[in-house]
């Protein structure tokens, strides 16, 4: 009787798993592929790359041409949707919206003069700039550190990678827009990073301005 029970269990389990796999295959799911981009910001700026090796660059420059490009889905709320329910688009799929232009000062810090309340970086007094930006970056990292964890499944499977997200910190420190810029290749890591950011309450913002940041998050396993 016990053997029959086990065989029944195995048969039912196989059928259920087969059904789920078949449905999942027809829905075009892709495990390695990142979840559909929640939002993609495409910074089209060669100078930016050059500057990225010099974060303390303080010489005012003419604002380089930067296109902030939004994909159709651009809301952190969608990060909570199951991956199966969103279209499995390739991670980088841009829909250019030329109406949005921003000025950048460094690769990781973008001040977006989208409206009058957002000050371009150049308007901040030169003496305070680099120190303030560094302090802000430090504040952001210190504030975020408690929200991240390594997904246990990724840890077990040995998944590592870098997730790049963009965040907007408004003048009183609240996180507003959280977009995935570049996935790690593992939907679980991407989702984990976005969910961690969605839980962030408030970040000290001593600049009292709205700030856009690109934030790389590196998931890395180490030998015990």
């Amino acid at each position, binding site marked *: 009787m016990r053997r029959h029970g086990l*065989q029944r269990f195995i048969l039912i389990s196989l059928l259920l798993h087969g059904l789920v*796999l078949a449905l999942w295959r027809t829905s075009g799911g892709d*495990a*390695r592929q990142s979840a559909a981009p929640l939002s993609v910001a495409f910074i089209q700026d060669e100078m930016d790359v050059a500057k990225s090796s010099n974060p303390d660059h303080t010489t005012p420059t003419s604002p380089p041409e930067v296109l902030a490009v939004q994909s159709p889905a651009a809301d952190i709320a969608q990060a909570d949707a199951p991956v199966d329910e969103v279209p499995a688009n390739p991670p980088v799929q841009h829909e250019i919206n030329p109406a949005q232009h921003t000025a950048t000062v460094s690769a990781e810090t973008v001040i977006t003069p989208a409206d009058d309340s957002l000050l371009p970086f150049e308007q901040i007094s030169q003496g305070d700039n680099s120190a303030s930006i560094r302090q802000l970056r430090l504040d952001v990292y210190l504030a975020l550190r408690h929200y991240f964890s390594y997904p*246990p499944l990724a840890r077990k*499977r040995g998944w590592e990678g870098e997730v790049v997200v963009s965040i907007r910190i408004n003048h009183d420190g609240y996180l507003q827009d959280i977009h995935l810029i570049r996935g790690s290749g593992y939907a679980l890591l991407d989702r984990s990073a976005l969910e961690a950011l969605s839980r962030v309450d408030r970040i000290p913002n001593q600049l009292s301005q709205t700030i856009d940041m690109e934030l790389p998050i*590196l998931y890395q396993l180490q030998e015990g």
Partner: protein
Amino acid sequence: MSYPNQSLLAICLLAVPSLALTETLGSPPLVVSATRTAQAADETLAPVIIITRDDIERSQAGDVANLLRLHAGLDIGRNGGPGQPVSLFIRGTESNHTLVMIDGVKINPGTIGGAALHNITPEMIERIEIVKGPRSALYGSEAIGGVINIITRPGEAARQWQVTAGGGSFGTRQAGAAMNLHNESLRAGVALHHLSTDGFSPITAAKIDRGHDNTTMKAYLGRQWGGVDVEASHWQASGRTEYLTFDYVTLGYNPADEDFTNSVSAVKVSASPATRWTSTLHLSNARDDLDQNQVPDFSHTSRNTLDWQNDLQLTDRQLVTAGITLTREDTEALVYGSGFDQTTDVNAAYLQDDITLDRHHVLAAVRHTDHENFGGHDSWDLEYGYALDDATRLTAAVGTGFRAPDSTDRFGYGGNTLLRPERSRNIEVGMKRALGEQQNAYLNVFHNTITDLIDYFDPDGWLGSLPGQNENIAKARIRGVEVGHHWRSGPYTGRVEVIAQQPRNETTGEPLPRRAEHSLTAALAYQGVRCGAGIDVVAQDERKDTAYSTAINAGYGIVNLNASYALGKAWRLSGKVENLFDKSYALADGYNTAERSFFVELRYSGSL
């Protein structure tokens, strides 16, 4: 972009992943780091030893047994030199109480004894994970003393090829070549290695050298189709081992030899049906064949296994693993004119829940095994970890293990098909502490009770008329304490491991044979840009030789030296001296061990 080295031992000790702030040029990433989990167990809760590729290349060990013995608590019994039978006793348990896997596939023979560790060449190994303590709740039979998972090369290697050649004492010569081709969706590789040695006389009373030939190959082909990853692989070690057999007519030793084949063929299909769910279907065949060349005796095992494992991350703090395993094991043997040819079906279902809540970490696992002969058997494991502070973790665990009777127990001499599995219950507590950023230390105390051990029982003695048979009559108890200290300072690494244990036969009160009550291992290594050097020390006190004799194998200490030098970017020359002080000692009474010996190897690595 370069990231700072995040070698924070405090992080390694804690199950709770840590976040490191980095300040580098360019976009500084937030680094979310965690300890890499051994495939066979979570290292934050279970005592795990990891032997990395660097360790293997540094030690230049000739076989897996010589790698394992460099860690206290892994006792080796050995009937001679290269290729001669090896017994491994983890934490004082029996030699058939360790489950050995190659790439997750069990290689223990179904006929008799433990896995053929003496046939596994380290050249093909990327990493060895050793979990001490019972793991039958996930892996089933034989996981009483521990589990060893040997992960074969290549690991994450991309487009590269490698050629090695070397030789040394005992007429040893070896050569190998490997090539790997990886791109985003396809990976393929092949590796071949041959070892040939004239060896030395395994028996102290004889003067006839006995050699060993071993050809090992690995081939694999893997591809991703969308989210489905499929990999087919084959590993095989085959060759000939010469040995000596006692002649009862001349009362001398005669040369004999046997051919061996150990292999693992597998197809693995992995997929993620959902973001938080991975499903792996693992179809494998493992073979362990031994054929005598002077007599018709043989011993063959072929095991087909279908394992379907699902990992489901329910929340960021909870991981559930569930699976089923279907096994058909064919065993066939002929020993001194009598033998068996049997097929045994073993099916099992298992479930594990791994939960982390702030400072608490709980792991619970249960498995039901349905064996063709003895019916159902349940095994379970419960582990708890508590992070006392950022550097200290306390652990407690209780778990069960079992060993299903093998074919010789059931159908060989004294065979009894009504045998139950041997059972164990292990209780242990431990502490692991980071001592600054570059050091850590651990302490484990364990108590393992093993019951229903199978032994031959003859009601009226050997000369009586009543037949004897195998019965579940023996009991053992092993108590022990193990302490270790690992450190790193720049290019230097070091470790010291000590175990004090009392492996006892509970029926007779006698110590269990070939297991030392006190062992110490130590290693010191330097790895510079061009050159590296290391020293390994193994010391054990005396050991009783067998349960049937009063012979004692004396305590011993041996020292091995190794060094390597990079000759340019592609060439590396390495060498070793084993048993530097030419210590004469025995791992089994009447059998020789290697005297002082020298080996050199030249390796060329190139890119494709």
